[in-house]
């Protein structure tokens, strides 16, 4: 039990004293999640939106597939991405193995189905009357599209937060593709795994608290922006 309280105290110490190893892991975590979230949002929101907004052949089946991909195990994604990035793999020549960019590729694959599926759900669950009302008010097709997008913004925000939560906390991809290299690809989650393996439970708990603090800051800023608008 003691190590939980000690962990809390150590977390504060690590942050205040500017522990270089901790900040290196924090920086790696932030960098890699910014990369993967940028990619998955840029692709995922338009795809999810179109999927929710339009009706097309096989739509139900494609939705079932994206919903299923939301439960992709991170270790499997890590293994698959490793297979592509390893020096002997098809993308080996780009030297992405054991880099933050490599981890970001895996995490984007992890986040993409979440962004697509939840964005599509958010758009689908909007009131059908919205479209009818807009059209009867004389809105053009483009105006209908923009208004729907605007009305779905909270749903899309929720989709992004969900994906961010998954990306921030995953350890399987970061460990397998990143290799947990100190000062380079050691993220907070792989550092927690390492410290736990080493029996340094206090440091593990402390790093966990640091991770939660990052998640809190991001969520807090977003809800602040949301309340203002």
């Amino acid at each position, binding site marked *: 039990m003691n190590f939980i309280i000690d962990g809390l105290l150590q977390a504060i110490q690590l942050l205040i004293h500017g522990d270089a190893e901790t900040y290196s892991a924090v920086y790696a975590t932030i960098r890699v999640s910014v990369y993967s979230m940028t990619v998955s949002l840029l692709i995922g929101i338009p795809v999810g939106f179109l999927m929710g907004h339009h009706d097309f052949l096989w739509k139900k089946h494609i939705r079932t597939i994206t919903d299923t991909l939301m439960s992709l195990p991170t270790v499997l994604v890590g293994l698959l991405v490793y297979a592509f990035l390893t*020096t002997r793999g098809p993308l080996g020549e780009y030297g992405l193995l*054991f880099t933050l960019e490599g981890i970001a590729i895996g995490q984007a694959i992890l986040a993409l189905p979440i962004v697509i599926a939840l964005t599509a759900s958010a758009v689908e669950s909007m009131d059908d009357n919205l479209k009818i009302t807009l059209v009867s008010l004389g809105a053009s097709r483009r105006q209908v599209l923009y208004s729907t997008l605007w009305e779905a913004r909270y749903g899309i925000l929720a989709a992004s937060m969900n994906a961010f939560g998954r990306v921030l906390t995953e350890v399987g991809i970061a460990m397998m593709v990143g290799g947990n*290299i100190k000062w380079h690809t050691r993220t907070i989650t792989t550092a927690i795994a390492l410290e736990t393996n080493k029996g340094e439970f206090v440091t593990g708990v402390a790093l966990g608290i640091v991770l939660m603090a990052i998640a809190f800051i991001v969520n807090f800023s977003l809800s602040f922006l949301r309340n203002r608008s």
Partner: protein
Amino acid sequence: MKRNVFIASLTLIAAFLILSGGTAFCADAKLLRMATTTSTDDTGLLDYLKPYFVKETGIDIQWVATGTGKALKLGENCDADVLLVHAPDAEKKFVADGFGLNRNVVMYNDFVLIGPASDPAGVKGKSVKECLSVISGKNIKFVSRGDKSGTHQAEQALWKASGLSVPDKEVWYVQAGQGMLTTIQIAAEQNGYTLTDRGTYIKYEDTMKGNPPLKILVEGDDLLKNIYSVIVVNPAKCPNVKSDLAKAFSDWMSRPSTQNLITGFKLSGKQLFFVSAK
């Protein structure tokens, strides 16, 4: 207003991406990538040696610490330039299969059999063979790494050397599938026995403030020697590996000054690794 906030955040993200990118893609010509076993990293040996290596050779080094099984696999896939591992039989096969060159024995320590201080199996001071026979005969809990690591392979060899079949589904045989320190902790929780390298045990003793629930019960047997070697990944199989840097590391590990450093590496006043007299 909302629009401004949106544009401002986009600009921030873009700036961040531009500033932080660019560093990763220029592969450093003077960077050596090593795959190694957990014990060399967990004990802190590599962190201790790295500054000397960088200073004396001008080569930067990064390592991935994992089980010996996976380290060899990374070598096979050309994802590491050099390996520091401890499973002699698997290493010899690796070299024989053409994946590695110059297997260089650089240091050793030994494995020890640890168990509860009360020693329910009564194996203290016995030979390894007797000890394992008693454990399997009396169905006493034994925790195995179960992860193809060097220690796991050594343990399997010990069962065979004792004339026993390697346990698998027996209820008293727990296959943890985890690193050495986690395995020791599982053994401690379950009041079981396990095999560990001495270095990791000293590290464990150190984190338990010198009073661990598991004690060394069997040690000093010839069968328990744990040998660490450096292997250069074969450039004939992997044209992109930096075999010159790898060779430089291998040579550096054998230098008398480095061997003195390894001898001087202590935790709680105890020496963890011993250099091999050649």
